């Protein structure tokens, strides 16, 4: 049984002083517990979709919106960003934009204060959220002393303390080193798997998406041009190519061999999958040869 948590209906959005809309007639339904990745070239509208999920678009941007976004049935245009924060937690690409306080603890407290969570409740939620992202013990540190990966995990913890049902991550690792990337992806995956958190991630690294996402939406010039599971999306190399996205390296390898006349039942999209596919394929081919 799946049930819908977010529904976007005929959403068109145009920022003020621009000559064409950032999003054109978007229709998208996101299910509870789903891990959804949004991919597309720069300027495709990925961030605008992400920002529409907690009402930042249209409440805090200047532009014209048509269509509707419903979050747990609530029409975002009829609700405040503050109220939607209970449902949708947002993490941006640069954690420094989001961190403003002198200690990790006060960073965690400020968001909760803003939505009127009482002190006793804070003392439960803060340690809980820090523990999930692996930052327990760093409460008195300055956020600016943390590594990039830790800062981004703090931004995730701050979002989690609001007990959202959906976590939206907009290119959360683009400013991180490989270690930080790994930390952020594994925390998001763990939340999705163990706490059935709905995750919506905007991300460029296709290898990572192939490992984690249930579904991928491909955006180009403000429109959804493709949508499907990671196998459907990443093995359709011609469609990816049309919007200027490369497939995972293992998929490109299998596809390259197909172009040379070899055949695979399914193109692999992950390293584990490729290991199986190629091991099996090499064995069989040797036998038949």
């Amino acid at each position, binding site marked *: 049984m799946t049930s819908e948590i977010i529904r976007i209906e005929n959403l068109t959005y145009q920022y003020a002083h621009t000559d064409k809309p950032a999003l054109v007639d978007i229709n998208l339904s996101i299910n509870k517990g789903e891990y959804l990745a949004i991919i597309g*070239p*720069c300027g495709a509208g990925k961030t605008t979709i992400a920002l529409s999920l907690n009402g930042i678009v249209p409440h805090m941007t200047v532009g014209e919106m048509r269509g509707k976004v419903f979050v747990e049935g609530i029409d975002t245009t009829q609700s405040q960003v503050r109220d939607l924060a209970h449902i949708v937690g947002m993490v941006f690409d640069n954690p420094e934009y989001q961190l403003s306080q002198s200690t990790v603890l006060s960073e965690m407290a400020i968001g909760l204060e803003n939505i009127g969570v009482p002190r006793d409740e804070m003392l439960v939620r803060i340690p809980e959220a820090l523990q999930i992202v692996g930052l327990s013990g760093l409460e008195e540190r300055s956020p600016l002393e943390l*590594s990039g990966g830790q800062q981004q995990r703090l931004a995730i913890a701050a979002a989690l303390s609001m007990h959202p049902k959906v976590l939206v991550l907009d290119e959360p690792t683009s400013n991180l*080193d490989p*270690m930080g990337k790994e930390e952020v992806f594994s925390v998001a995956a763990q939340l999705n798997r163990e706490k059935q958190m709905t995750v919506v991630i905007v991300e460029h690294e296709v*290898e990572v998406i192939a490992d984690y996402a249930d579904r991928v939406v491909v955006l180009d010039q403000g429109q959804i041009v493709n949508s499907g599971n990671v196998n459907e999306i990443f093995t359709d190399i011609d469609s990816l190519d049309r919007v200027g996205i490369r497939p995972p390296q293992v998929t490109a*390898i299998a596809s*390259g061999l197909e172009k040379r006349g070899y055949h695979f039942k399914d193109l692999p999209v992950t390293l584990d999958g490729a290991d199986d596919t190629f091991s099996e394929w*090499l064995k069989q*081919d040797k036998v038949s040869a």
Partner: protein
Amino acid sequence: MSNIIECSNLSHVYPTGLPAIKAINLKVNSGEIVAILGQNGSGKTTLVKHFNGLLKPTSGKVSINGIDTAKQTVFNLSSHAGYVFQNPNHQLFSTSVLAELQFGPKNQGLTDDEIEVRVKETADFFQLHSIINEHPLRLSFPLRKIVAMASIYAMQPSIFILDEPTTGQDHGGAEKVRKFLRKLKDDEKTVILVTHDMPLVAEIADRVIAMWSSEIIRTANPREFFFDLKTMEKTKLQQPQATALSHRLQKKVLNDGITLTVQETINALEKVLN
């Protein structure tokens, strides 16, 4: 002269007392593409800022084209080594792409005719003609990064220092960066590439330098480096996926050593069958 960059016992201690790099010994050959890898805070940027005089050694010595940087200004060194920042906003300040491209050559004292040739060549290569009169800050972030690269290219230094050139680029932008790197290789320029983009390193670098906690802990060609799982583990760096696949398959079927790129892996797998 073959060593275009030479660091001997280079250390840099910031005014806070924090040592950012310790006892670096490094020689870079002219025409080499050297990738400097490591986690944030490992000292990569501090090291490369010594190559154009943005930082001076607090002990030890750095020579660029045989010139001791300690006695030189950034301005004097800029004709030797051009630095493309990770964030183009730290670099671009002119009011049009054209003015941005003209700025460096003008400061180098070139004649108007020479400047025009440089600007045209650069705009041709980077395909900037359609945006030549735009204000750089009105361009998208990825395009701004390309303009930042172009403005350094217009100065034709012998050394290019590129800090995270593919970060924030989509696939199309990353392809432009690759094309630029191949062009620099053809032109026999020396390139210092600071990056977390391992597939890029695997494709293009002649040599990899891995830093960890202010020191160089490994220098190797990319094939040796990405095969050295111990160093990869220690520096928390990852193999490109194509390399990881060939590494796994090697145990079973591939005997020719690991591959670095998609194309190499395709060739190696095909070879096993024939």
